[in-house]
């Protein structure tokens, strides 16, 4: 019952945000970057459904364009974290010995920095740009992926079907690829869903601080930062981007819960 509600609401919200981003790639009501100082901070009207911002840009168009930025950055971040994390986790869990010890020490060191701090430190080096954020957040999330993959690999590397593959004379690389890697899929998919939500939140937070996607690109975080001085005059400017971030996160969290119930054998029947 709860599983179905989680899957339904989470799936709908996530699909909605993805659809919004896809739609914005093709069409927005107005140009999200087009400024017009004569119509700054206007209330909603027939022409501008959610009003205009501090530079006279259409808020609805910017919300839609912001979905492209957020979803794009989050997907790229998750891809980086999965690529590196799965490789490191597989190597550590399958080869064990010194490789595992060295990778484990690096992992533990990175996990000793609280989440966003590592990303902030990396951004200090990389400078604010879309790829800087993707790389910084991706590297910051890599250790958690590596840990999950390593744990799963360690728990199955001696199982019968892995032994059987070796006994048949299959090479270690083939065994790893064909008989170990697929079993890491379930926990990794669950984690990736959570990472997608975290990446959206982190990118918004960084953009809110001014360290994220550089202006004038539309992002929900920088829209919130820009709306701050007009909070009393135009509350909608502060409310709308936050609602988008919250819906996105709610979708990812509910979908993550549903997938965990479906895929994670630990809580299974």
């Amino acid at each position, binding site marked *: 019952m*709860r599983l179905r509600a989680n899957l339904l609401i989470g799936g709908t919200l996530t699909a909605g945000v993805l659809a919004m981003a896809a739609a914005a790639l093709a069409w927005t009501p107005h140009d999200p970057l087009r400024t017009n100082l004569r119509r700054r901070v206007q209330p909603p009207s027939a022409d501008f459904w959610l009003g205009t911002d501090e530079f006279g840009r259409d808020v609805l168009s910017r919300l839609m364009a912001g979905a492209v930025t957020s979803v794009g950055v989050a997907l790229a971040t998750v891809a980086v974290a999965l690529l590196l994390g799965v490789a490191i986790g597989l190597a550590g869990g399958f080869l064990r010995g010194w490789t595992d010890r060295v990778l484990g*020490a*690096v992992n*533990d*060191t*990175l996990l*000793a*920095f*609280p*989440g*966003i*701090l590592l990303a*902030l*430190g*990396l*951004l*200090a*080096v990389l400078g604010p740009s879309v790829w800087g954020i993707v790389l910084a957040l991706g590297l910051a999330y890599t250790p958690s992926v590596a840990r999950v993959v390593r744990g799963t690999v360690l728990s199955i590397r001696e199982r019968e079907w892995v032994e059987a593959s070796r006994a048949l004379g299959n090479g270690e690389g083939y065994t790893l690829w064909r008989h170990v890697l697929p079993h890491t899929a379930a926990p990794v998919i669950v984690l990736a869903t959570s990472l997608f*939500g975290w990446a959206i*939140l982190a990118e*918004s*937070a960084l953009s*809110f*601080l*001014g*360290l994220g996607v550089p202006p004038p690109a539309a992002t929900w975080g920088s829209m*919130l930062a820009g709306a*701050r001085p007009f*909070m*009393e005059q135009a*509350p909608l400017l*502060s*409310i709308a*981007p*936050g609602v988008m*971030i*919250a*819906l996105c*996160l*709610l979708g990812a*969290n*509910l979908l993550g*819960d549903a997938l965990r119930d479906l895929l994670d054998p630990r809580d299974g029947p």
Partner: protein
Amino acid sequence: MARYVLARLLVALPTLLLVALAVFLLLRLIPGDPAQLILGDAAAEEALADLRRAMGLDQPLPVQFLLWLGRAASGDLGQSITNGQAVAPLILERFGVTASIVVAAVALAVLIAVPAGMLAAWRQNSLGDVAAVAAATLLLSIPSFWLGLIMLLIFGLWLGWVPVVGYVSFAEDAWAGLRFLILPVLTLALIETGVMIRMARAATVEVLRLDYIAHARAKGVPERLVLSRHAFPNAFAPTLTLVGLVTGGLLGGAAVTETVFTLPGLGRLLVDAIFARDYPVVQGVMLFVALIYVMVNLAVDLLYPLFDPRVTAG
């Protein structure tokens, strides 16, 4: 017990060293010459050479690391490039602000979340349970900086109960200081309540399934005591680990909340230093925050046996 404490301390030590190495190397990745950064592009060649020698930049990298580590261990984190202030006292001053809101917020969150999560687990799948989980998931999904802005909008601008900008330290004027701290504390507490309710609930559900709980009930122990005396200690232990992670994370990562409420905290110091390319401050804050994070988690590990004595046996 003594062996457990000693073992945990010994494990923390290499982690701290590696963390220091990571912070040192991270800031060395920045392209360009630190001396040039400090003196600017127009600096004379001799001045640059002098500064490089003074900073130890002419030494090989491992020697530089050991020199830096030695100075950091004795509390010398260098000077800020922007205003020449010593970094260590600056960090401690800002840390006081962050710590006061974080400690208050986490305490408040624990006081709300642990009883709520336990009661939800006790009446699993009841209407109250579903409502508690839904509320927790919703809180989990609200960005802290947005909740902060909305609270400022409602309580600051519309109702006028609290000041909207500025900061007065609690030490200067207790009442005025408190008014600046209410909203940031409430914001952080509400957000963290979401994670903690889910954790406390999940842990309690696990524990209530166990035989010793059924045994206690069969003996005729009242439900109130079954929950408080039998279930609570075991259910609280995993929550405590989460509390440690959350506290450590907030102490370093409350930058967005501090920005919303214009509080001069540690997170804000780091963000400003990144903007100003003030690398000694960035390096100092990162080292300090990682140190605090490791220490908080160490403290949690040391407290853990109080609730779950099984861990010391292993």
